[in-house]
């Protein structure tokens, strides 16, 4: 038994081959290596032996990871495509395009600083004058333009009746994450941003009440490509009480708190395609004032080190 075992072990130790000094322990290339056991003992006929195997071009599925088309010149891209036998891309497309919303907020409204922060009894309140819409000539002109298409349009009615209800319905649809349903209350441009942000999250939102009645603050009208194709954008000021809880993919609280409602002051932009007979008012975006900081900083909940409380 022992002799058989020793025979087997001795097979592993090939005479004449020694382990070389291994300087580096990593699998990166090193100048000292263990001698290979997979080499033929006679190097004389290596070339002929190599000819036995018929070479095959093996695809490399990971070669494009190192490519950066933005940094590659046109010549390089063309040569690479020629290598692969790909024909150049055709630029023109023969597909009908439907413009149903604009790509951005036109002449965004600049909210006054400190809006909504001063209480009625404070000394700051009278200083923060609420500029009425009638005083804003451009907005009134735009409202008249809207009335050409929609005779019953009235900024006051729109704000109090339609704006808040669209806002609430949009949030309730957002909780369901139904893209088509959200799309009825929201323009395509905003829809993309919403769906991107909703990815892998659960939202629980509740509308408590309106602290102040919704007001129309800004109206603008824009024509896209042709003079007849008109879009209208209305910015509404909403001061509401809401509770929001955002949970991540695993059901852990990421942001907010469902139990504590908060006062929310927002400037929401509604858009409508006036030239379109079936156009409806939909949320197009929100205005984040420059004095608020650089955009909205989404700070997820993080663990904080618990310091020992000193006994009194």
């Amino acid at each position, binding site marked *: 038994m022992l002799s058989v075992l020793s025979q087997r072990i001795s097979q592993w130790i090939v005479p004449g081959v020694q382990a070389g000094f291994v300087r580096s*322990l*990593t*699998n990166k290339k090193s100048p000292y290596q263990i001698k290979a056991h997979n080499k033929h003992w006679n190097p004389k006929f290596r070339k002929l032996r190599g000819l*036995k*195997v*018929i070479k*095959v071009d*093996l695809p*490399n*599925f*990971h070669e*494009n*990871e190192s*490519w*950066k*088309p933005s940094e590659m010149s046109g010549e390089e*891209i063309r040569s*690479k*495509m020629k290598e692969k036998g*790909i*024909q150049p*891309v*055709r630029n023109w*497309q023969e*597909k009908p*395009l*439907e*413009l*149903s*919303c*604009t*790509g*951005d907020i036109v002449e965004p409204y600049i909210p006054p600083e400190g809006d909504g922060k001063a209480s009625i009894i404070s000394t700051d309140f009278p200083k923060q004058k609420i500029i009425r819409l009638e005083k804003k000539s451009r907005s009134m002109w735009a409202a008249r333009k809207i009335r050409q298409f929609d005779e019953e349009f009235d900024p006051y009615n729109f704000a109090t009746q339609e704006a808040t209800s669209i806002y609430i319905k949009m949030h309730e649809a957002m909780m369901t994450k139904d*893209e*088509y349903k959200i*799309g009825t209350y929201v*323009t*395509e*441009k905003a*829809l*993309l941003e919403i*769906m*991107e942000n909703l990815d*892998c*999250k*659960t939202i*629980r939102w509740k509308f408590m009440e309106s602290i102040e009645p919704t007001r129309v603050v800004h109206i603008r009208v824009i024509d*896209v*490509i042709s003079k007849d194709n008109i879009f209208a954008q209305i910015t509404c000021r909403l001061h509401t009480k809401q509770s929001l*809880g955002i*949970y*991540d*993919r*695993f*059901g*852990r*609280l990421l942001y907010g708190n469902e139990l504590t409602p908060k006062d929310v002051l927002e400037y929401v932009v509604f858009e409508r395609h006036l030239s379109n007979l079936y156009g409806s008012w939909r949320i197009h975006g929100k205005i984040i004032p420059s004095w608020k900081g650089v955009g909205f900083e989404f700070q*997820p909940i*993080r*663990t904080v080190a618990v310091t020992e409380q000193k006994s009194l």
Partner: protein
Amino acid sequence: MSATSMMNRHWPRVLHRFYQLDRVPTLSSIHVHPISTTAKLETKGREGMNTQGPQGWPLYNKQVYPPTEPGEKPRPAFICHMKVNVKYSPLKLWYVACLVRGMQIDEAIRQVEYIKKKGANIVRETLIEARELAVQKHNVEFRSNLWVAESFTGKGIVIKGVRKHARGRIGAVHYRYAHYFVRLEEGSPPDHYYTPKPDGPQMLLDWIKERRELKIEGSY
């Protein structure tokens, strides 16, 4: 459900998500059905978009769990990541995949660096990518608070070549490709990934228990 079939689903009035991220918002947002009728030089897509090979594994990352109730224990985060169609034998890669199982992520990355195999590099890169993804996309707070819950390989495509033998004989040569799948879970690794072999005292107790359970058939 492949990535391409997801893209072709008919959403009438909506710009497809896959196409919007690279676009700069212009004056007009255009309705366009997703089109890729012409071939393009393929570049690394978002999250290493993979159109060939296994599609199911990263779909686990899209699974959304309902919020935990106040009494429930918080659910640990997990991340499924893979590296597909690597030119390496899956059977050889399996050895490295086995090594890494049940290890803490930093320990796994460190250990795998010293394995003299081509597969070690593959595993190492995948683990590093997975750890980054965990922090950036899956709300994992501490990048070291992860351990390797699952690590396994799959067979990729096999391209068959040919080699000559003596006396006009021909032999087949298999150029194998492998897939490597890994799942990282948040938390500290378990003490034993596999049920351990019982030690001496435990074996004795088991034996005693066994002997005590012996019964004569038909007796009370």
